């Protein structure tokens, strides 16, 4: 969208921002990469459009302590991650100039992104200005966000076990899911820390694969905005979002509807409670065995 580019150049030129995080084209048509632009001339390569799938909010961590403001282009769902990072005091609002960019669903070389098929909406949670287009407002989610989870819940335990073994056994522990995740923003991950006692670098056993992904999902539970990047980036095509969505679904059902990265409340379902909460045994009481 030329308007975003033009506006970013204006803001760079008048000194409002010192740099822009956006996208640039790759070698082909679909291989756009997140990129840094530091002056108007570099902005020549700036693009925004169908292949701007990546969530740029995590890059904000890199620039939070740098001099001056950084302009960041965020799609509606990306702004949730941005808000969540604000909640967690990981970034300062005044260090960023957020352009909310309208989105009508992103693509890659294979077609529409999986994460966009369960689009959470067109609202911007955080922005300094919105540059939207009418087309974007018209598009809607193609599927129920929880459909995949529900399908799994309907299976028998053995079927679920086989499903996850099949999926997780492909994991090569490249950490792409972790490193792309705006909620997995630990300065040092427990799985990288020799002092944590659980450091592991390779999925050396079936169990460690499970453990890594359960703990990862658990650590982001209540903080995960369901941006879907984990599944998008997995080189082994593991549907990791189904783990996160399970937690989201459970929390919604047991503790009331909650969307991470929305509103002013910094408490997540796991940092709050009510006295009447369900007992853990409820897990065994519902659904089939």
């Amino acid at each position: 969208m030329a308007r975003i580019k033009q506006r970013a150049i204006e803001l760079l030129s008048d000194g409002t921002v010192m740099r822009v995080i956006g996208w640039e084209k790759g070698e082909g048509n679909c291989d756009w990469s997140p990129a840094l632009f530091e002056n108007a001339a570099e902005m020549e390569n700036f693009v925004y459009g169908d292949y701007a799938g990546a969530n740029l909010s995590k890059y904000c961590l890199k620039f939070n302590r740098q001099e001056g403001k950084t302009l960041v282009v965020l799609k509606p769902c990306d702004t949730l991650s941005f808000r969540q990072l604000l909640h967690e005091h990981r970034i300062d609002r005044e260090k960023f100039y957020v352009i909310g960019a309208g989105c009508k669903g992103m693509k890659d070389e294979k077609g529409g992104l999986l994460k966009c098929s369960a689009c959470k909406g067109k609202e911007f949670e955080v922005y300094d200005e919105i540059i939207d287009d009418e087309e974007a407002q018209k598009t809607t989610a193609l599927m129920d966000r929880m459909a995949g989870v529900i399908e799994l819940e309907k299976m028998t335990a053995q079927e679920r076990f086989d499903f996850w073994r099949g999926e997780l056994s492909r994991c090569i522990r490249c950490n792409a899911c972790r490193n792309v995740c705006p909620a997995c923003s630990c300065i040092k991950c427990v799985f990288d820390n020799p002092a944590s006692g659980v450091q592991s670098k390779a999925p050396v056993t079936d169990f460690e694969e499970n453990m890594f992904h359960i703990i990862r999902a658990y650590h982001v539970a209540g903080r995960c905005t369901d941006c879907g990047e984990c599944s998008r980036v997995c080189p082994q095509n593991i549907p990791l979002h189904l783990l996160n969505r399970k937690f989201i679904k459970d929390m919604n059902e047991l503790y009331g509807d909650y969307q991470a990265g929305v509103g002013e409340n910094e408490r997540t379902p796991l940092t709050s409670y009510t006295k009447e909460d369900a007992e853990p045994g409820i897990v065994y009481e519902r659904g089939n065995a």
Partner: protein
Amino acid sequence: MMRQFPANQVKKIIESIPCAVYAPVEDGAMVVFERYQDGMELRLDKICTDKTPKDILFPQWENLMHFRVEGKTIELSEQQRCEEDYVLFGVRACDIQAFKVLDRVFLSDPVDTYYAARREHGTIVALACGDPKETCFCKNFGVDPAQPDADVVLWLAGDDYYCEAYTDKGRALMSTWETRDAEEGVVEWVKGEIAKKYDALPFAKLNLKGFDGDHLMEKFNSPKWKKLSMACLGCGSCTFACPTCQCYDIRDYDTGNGIQRYRCWDSCMYSDFTLMAHGTNRPTQVERYRQRFMHKLVYFPSRNEGMYSCVGCGRCIEKCPMNLNIVKVIKALGEGENND
């Protein structure tokens, strides 16, 4: 001696091989090299398997040895090296070139005996790339997709596989196959077709001028690394997908009954790769990103008579979540017409 057999017989031929056969098969939504078993979906058509066959020679993790510690004493028992013959079936030219890169590392003095044993026990049946894909750029690194360098090479032409053995191992293996004399000229024609197809690919000819030891400092000090690496997440997808990346880590695992010392893949892209008690010499992703590509394009050839440790398979182009890849680096840092 070139032979041929009907393509629909390939399963039968694989099943007839008395030892373990690793071949590209379908696993979920992916194609990977796995020990072939009856009922598996053979996917010889897949140009670049999603996972490289390097983990047959250099597994993602392997036990090296075992210690028993009692009081002040230590008992050590070594892990057995590979002792069984196996066949690696349907490997492409680029991946075979990658084995040679790995050989340079693991078989140079002192030899890595774990790797060496596996290498020795394997017979490699290669398959020429009849239909190279858009992300292929192997010829830039001296790889001929039409003529892999293996014990046995297969070419698919029409409904038949043409095959020729180039080593004793290969000849021994092929002698057990049911084949007939090959029709002459077919393979030459196939090779020609492959060359034509390859030449039409977008990255067919990259300019690698300047990627050598003589320009080491110049490339190292290029200001372009900062922007090139900006989007890098520091994950290991490229290194794990890469057929030549061989950085590893050695770790101890307390099983409760002793200590298992194992080796696992590591990645120079990881922030803790070079971290030690008083810091790291590659503190940001810029340095780590630079290290990976400098190693492939400059350091390795400088040590190995110009042999690049990139084989142009294109997996990193497919796998990088942020669409960063070595072609972009070559184009950005290279000289001449690339440098547009």
